[in-house]
């Protein structure tokens, strides 16, 4: 219950924070809302020499809808702030199901994305929306496509001197709708399987589809097999069912005390069907 001791910094600006990171590198850990890091520190399964608390950097907060329908979410935006500011009802509905109200009041979007828990919900949602992650270091800013961001359990493309400053989601295609469906691991509230889908029909055919899956693999991933099987189909029940068969293509599926690989694989298909049907408005 008591973390091991660490030094604490609360930089007043992003520049100061980046300078601290470049000075201390891997010996420092970033603290945003704290809902990924503090539980691990308390159990002493994580430790750090120093913490750089970026929680008050107002410049990293906020949900900023673009005139073109795009959306930029500051890394320090809490789930609750996202709920208040998000423009897509299905995203609100999904975020309302993450954690609990206390977690949503403190936990941040950037923190969750950067922590990359393999069963976290936001990565799947981000993958379905597409877009890019904005990373800053003292040597500059770079962006990483969401598709290339999640590398493994708790591993991302972020380097130890970088801060995730925002996530940019592009305008979704005309008529696109999305949905997130999941099965909970009841104790932790994390997802055993979670599937986010964004789909748009064009001329009676599925013209756009992105599917993000969490809980199933070592990291959240895009179910490209599902996307290509659906693409150009009529989006009907049979097409959905056939496409969902590809939900875990190429994945080594997780197994733990809550669900083995067979169950997760089967549920990835079932939940993919449900997410697709919901996204397609059924």
């Amino acid at each position, binding site marked *: *219950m*008591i973390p*091991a*001791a660490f030094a604490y910094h609360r930089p007043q600006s992003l520049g100061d924070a980046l300078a601290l990171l470049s000075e201390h590198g891997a010996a420092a850990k970033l603290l945003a809302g704290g809902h990924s890091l503090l539980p691990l520190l308390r*159990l*002493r399964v994580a430790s750090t020499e120093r913490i750089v608390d970026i929680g008050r950097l107002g410049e990293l907060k906020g949900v900023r809808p673009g005139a073109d329908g795009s959306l930029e979410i500051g890394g320090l935006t809490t789930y609750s702030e996202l709920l208040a500011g998000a423009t897509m009802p299905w995203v609100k509905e999904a975020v309302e199901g993450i954690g609990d109200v206390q977690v949503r009041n403190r936990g941040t979007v950037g923190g969750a994305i950067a922590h990359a828990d393999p069963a976290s919900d936001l990565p799947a949602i981000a993958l379905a929306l597409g877009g890019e992650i904005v990373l800053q270091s003292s040597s500059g800013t770079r962006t990483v496509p969401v598709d290339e961001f999640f590398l493994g359990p708790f591993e991302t493309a972020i380097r130890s001197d970088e801060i995730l400053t925002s996530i940019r989601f592009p305008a979704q295609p005309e008529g696109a709708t999305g949905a997130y469906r999941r*099965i909970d691991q*009841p*104790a*932790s509230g994390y997802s*055993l399987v979670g599937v986010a889908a964004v789909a748009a029909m064009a001329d009676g055919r599925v013209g756009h589809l992105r599917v993000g899956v969490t809980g199933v693999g070592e990291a959240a991933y895009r179910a490209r097999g599902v996307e290509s099987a659906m693409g150009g189909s009529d989006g009907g029940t049979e097409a959905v069912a056939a496409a969902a068969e590809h939900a875990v293509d190429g994945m080594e599926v997780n197994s733990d*005390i*809550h*669900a*083995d690989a*067979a*169950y997760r694989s*089967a*549920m990835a298909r*079932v*939940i993919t069907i449900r997410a697709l049907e919901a996204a397609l408005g059924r």
Partner: protein
Amino acid sequence: MTAETEADVLTAETQVSAGPVGQSLKRREDPRFITGEGNYLDDIKLAGMSHLAILRSPYAHARITSIDTSGAKAMPGVLAVIVGADIPYNPLPMAWPAGGSSGVQNNVNTPRVLATDDVKWTGEGVAAVVAETPEQAADALEAIQVDWEPLPAVVDAEKATKEGAPQLHENAPNNVVFVWKVGDESGTAAAIDSAEVVVRQRLVNQRLIPNPLEVRGDIGWYNPGTDEYTIWMSSQTPHIQRLLLGAFVTGIPEHKIRCISPDVGGAFGTKIFCYADMALVMFASKLVGGRPVKWVETRRESYQSTIHGRDHISYLEIAGSRDGTIAGLRVKTYANLGGRLSTIGPGIPTTLYGRVLAGCYKFPNVFCEVTGVYTNTTFVDAYRGAGRPEATYVVERAMDLFADEIGMDPAEIRRRNFLPPDSFPYDNPSGLGTAVNGEKIYIDSGNYEPALDKALAMAGYADMASTKAEARTRGKLLGVGLSSYIEVCGVAPSKWIGAVGEGWGAAMWESANIRIHLTGKIILTIGTQPQGQGHETTFSQIVAQELGVPVEDVIVQHSDTKGAPFGYGSYGSRTASVGGSAAIKAAGKVREKARRYAAHMLEASPDDIEVDGATYSVRGSPDKKKTLQEISFAIGLGFSLPEGMEPYLDETAYYDTPNCTWPFGTHVAIVEIDDETGVVDLVRYIAVDDVGNKINPMIVDGQLHGGIAQGVGQALWEGAVYDDNGQLLSGTMMDYALPRASWLPMFELDETVTPSPVNPLGAKGVGEAGAIASTAAVANAVIDALSPLGIRHLDMPYTAQTVWRAMSQAKGGQA
């Protein structure tokens, strides 16, 4: 049910009360709890207090080769580092051997205060640090070096008894603690052999982690000036702990130990027992020169070192005929007791399980054999219901299995086999009525069919086919499950408990002391110990009723061995029936003395004094009267006392009930299963309980709600998971699922009222009833939902994966 029988049930002996008993008064405890003014163990701060932390074994089975504490001793703020060899105390006591019939000495192999040579489960304490702050104590633990020699481990009770299994204790070949038998072995065998239908099933009643929301903790304080010890402890049984810590563990004279239990944040059985940490803080406080030493477990520690519950593997056979008449029930159970024995571990799967296995049914033949087993797991002891949920689960699953086999409705088979209302007193064949040294207990009352009928009506049982069909249109499998239970509460009488074979090492009476002060204000001191049940409210209602005073004029004190009469504490749904009766008895003594003193004041014969509430008047002269307040003032001053009478109204009573109490009822669970994911949703829960007369119906309902939720938790979500090496994989609330608000429906409660004939309140017990009934009800509902697929049994908890796998296999699909 006919109109007459319903009327009989609802009116006969139903308590008609003009006073506070029977009223849903708001609880007087609550203002402090809802304003943050409760005083739980960790809220206590004492001058000079230091903090203790315990180093726990990472291995489930290992020898300790060496312990190097030098690094820890050098850490900042460290006052002392303690290892097992430093502590001269005895191992902890084991107070409830399962009985002599096993021929195995089973009151040994209990934990030491800190392990000395070896560890038997992950989390057994091996060293401790006392430091100025909790942070320093936690930091110093990491500097203790222990060399281990890991040994092979076994966690499954059945496997532990097999040839070649790792052996835990030299004196327990094949890890057997005891083999305990009850009932008619040959008669049951004959009934099964000759039966028209026999159904057999292996059942696993999984291991549970009780999870009171407040973890355990203690503060030990040795006062060098008086050579006395005070221990604050989050406990259900402070008086018993004083006895056990004094006479059995430390050898310190009992009168030099004072145990205080402050507000207790839930317990559910876990806080009945004598734990190593209680003795450890005593030892540590003396070691550091008499500074108070506080230890509070973390939740993760609690999961490893506070007792677990259940963990049975049972083989059941139920036999009978196609008309639904049950001829016999035979059960062989492996009860996992953990690596060492907890205070009353062996008593739970024996007396409190095997003896009530026949439930509310008239089975001619019952036989039960229980093998208690050591494994490399946390010790197992009483958790809410303690033995009776396990028994109810077995018999209620058995009834459904048998009904399914012969194609009979589950409600009908229960009805056919219920003990009829004229059966009582009833000696059941699984040994309740077995005379032990000439003493018997028996089921003294019951009327089971009205409760069943009421529950069925509330559930809309007759229309269940159409309810199920409607659910199918939504992709849901709907199931309905029944559980008709009886419960043995307030285990008693002491002379039966104390008889050879049922040897809980102490009696089971209860105490109460009433003092009426000069101003007429009343203090009741009780030996029971609340953990959320509202004793301060309930007992003040009883005393106010008995003495005719306003409830506000009575306060209830408890939880401190200093100055209080000895009491056995609160567990086993005994407080209202046994403790409440002690309060009534004490009130009666006070009233009698007041009556005699009123006679003195009014210059009348005591025989002519009539008591009406708090008014004591002379028969035939109603104007000649004294109030209880006037009496208490005068007798308290003592200026004028009749010959031989002592001043003051101060009476203590000890009450030993002549029998246990026997609540019963029928619960109905309705579940819906998502046929693609296996997710189970509890959609309705109906409970009709008969707990006799209710002192505070609001509190009774609350007890039922909580018990139901815990039992539902076992059926649907909860389960401790060990790996084969004895690592507790469900080591935190991240991996052990506790019921949450959004998973539960509103509970639909009703009652029948059959007062207990053995105590003056007519009250039975209610603390455990919900948990005893609900697990089986939900289990039966889930299996009912799955039965169209040909599934006849599944082991709990019914997680989505478990249910999905069963459905997939039944459909012939991959799994």
